[in-house]
């Protein structure tokens, strides 16, 4: 690793990386998520069945060599309800009692189920490029919170996946030692989730209320 390379090879665009993944790993499904911020760090959502194989490809491919998994974290996306106003043609009774066709505003609600998401930021120490952002999504936020672990590919995910398990409740299948890391073992619930309600632990106020009653 000695000697400084004068020209840093540019990282291929995310579309090209996707094409390479699909050529190398048969059956892998990759979806690109565009990033609207000026940073323009776009990401790729992987399917669970091929995630490990894709990760190994990205690490070992001679052009990409993403040997350094810098950041592993989780994001909680709540169930979302979006409502939009739609103009609908309907038969409406007019003032004279005769039904007429009219345009009426109607509010339509669409529910998108929430999910948890594990995010991996990859860099290359050899090629000195990055980041390539990977995302793994769980089926939902309640009983289907499994994603495959990438710790067997990058050791740096070991503690960070444990943290995502601890604070978000994502279960990483294939992690060698999946335990809580920051909260204590007897703790229930996952405090970084968006709908987490902290316990009423204001002891002084409770005592004061007891005294008053």
């Amino acid at each position: 690793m000695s000697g400084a390379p004068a020209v840093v090879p540019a990282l291929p665009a995310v579309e090209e990386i996707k094409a390479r993944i699909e050529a190398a790993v048969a059956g892998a499904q990759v979806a690109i998520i565009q990033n609207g911020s000026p940073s323009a760090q776009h990401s790729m959502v992987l399917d669970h069945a091929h995630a490990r194989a894709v990760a190994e490809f990205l690490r070992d491919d001679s052009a990409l060599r993403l040997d350094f998994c810098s950041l592993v974290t989780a994001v909680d996306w709540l169930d979302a309800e979006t409502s939009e106003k739609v103009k609908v043609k309907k038969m409406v009774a007019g003032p004279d009692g005769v039904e007429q066709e009219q345009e009426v505003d109607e509010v339509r609600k669409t529910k998108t189920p929430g999910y948890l998401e594990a995010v991996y930021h990859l860099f290359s120490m050899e090629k000195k490029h990055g980041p390539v952002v990977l995302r793994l999504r769980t089926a939902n936020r309640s009983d289907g919170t499994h994603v495959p672990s990438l710790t067997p590919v990058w050791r740096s995910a070991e503690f960070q996946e444990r943290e995502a398990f601890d604070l978000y409740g994502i279960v990483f299948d294939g992690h060698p030692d999946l335990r809580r890391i920051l909260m204590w073992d007897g703790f229930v619930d996952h405090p970084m989730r968006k709908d987490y309600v902290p316990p009423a632990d204001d002891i002084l106020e409770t005592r004061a209320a007891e005294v008053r009653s």
Partner: protein
Amino acid sequence: MTAENLAEMEEVAGPGEILEVSMGPHHPSTHGVFRMDVRLDGEKVVRLKPVFGYLHRNHEKIAEKGAYLASIPYTDRLDYLCSMTNNWGYVLAVEKLAGLAVPERAEYLRVIVAELTRFQNHAGLVGFLLQDMGASGTPLMYAFREREKILDLFESLSGARMMCNYMRFGGLRVDATPAWLEEVKQLVGRLPRFVDEFEALLRGNEILMARTQGTGVLSRELAINAGVTGPMLRATGVNYDVRKVDHYGVYDRFSFRVPLGDHGDVYDRYMMRILEMRETVKILEQALRGIPGGPVMDPKVRLRGLRPKAGEAYGRIESPKGELGFFLISDGTGNPYRYRVRPPSMINLTVLEDMCLGQNVADVVITLGSVDIVLGEVDR
């Protein structure tokens, strides 16, 4: 770890020969509240599991509930020895997220305060490492003498010695006066002598050599795979410094070298710090020579009520401990939807067990010391 594993270990070592020791959370060598569950066969370490969380305050949740500006003083408390670099990591991520530009004078001042921070961190670390080895007091006080001068400079610049809260996205909170820059110049002129003295004091010490050389060896491949960064990575010979790779700020304008080790042992890690202090002095001299005039804050930036467009950004810097990164997701509102710190101290601990297996229990202390952790950042 289950009972079967203990039985397996006892099969090798003999019944009743495995001793379980809980090092910490109140142990001077852990530099805070940190615990290691160690299993020993005689003096030899056969298993080591770090236990975190004693200082956990869910920093990330607090930041997600506050405005973008409100998190800056909170980042001071992550690695409380290096508040300036923590500030920089965070404001850099916000600048990437919102696409903000920074005036040139502010970029130079950022380099100056960040390199002063690196210097005092490395000096302190070497002092603590020596302290852990039994050189009580003297080396640490040498380091603290210099650190004190740097903290005085921080105080006159930002109003606080350690919790500086100095940087803002789009620039800096206050400008430095010419008198302050003159004081820094004078201090930087004296620093090489301190490094010489410090190094001579330690390098000729036979006990130090015997204790550190060949202790806590980390291989190059494992270091890369485990995401180890900072001086600890470079001690294994991997040339990776975010200042050189990303050229964030104005680091591409300075000529400095990235010191590399070869063996990846405690001695190399300690030498990395000494050599980096020398390079830091070089950067400081160039930055002080080249600092331009002008404003230190972009007046168009809305500090209060910043609402970046929906999107995400990962910004990172080379902090004294390694790659410090911040990952932010904006949903278009005034506070981040997701705020995540990439703590170098914690990720560097991933390999602590690998470095300590087969070592004497006394060497665990100096191996941990050479990782350079601050629990405010590990536990967040």
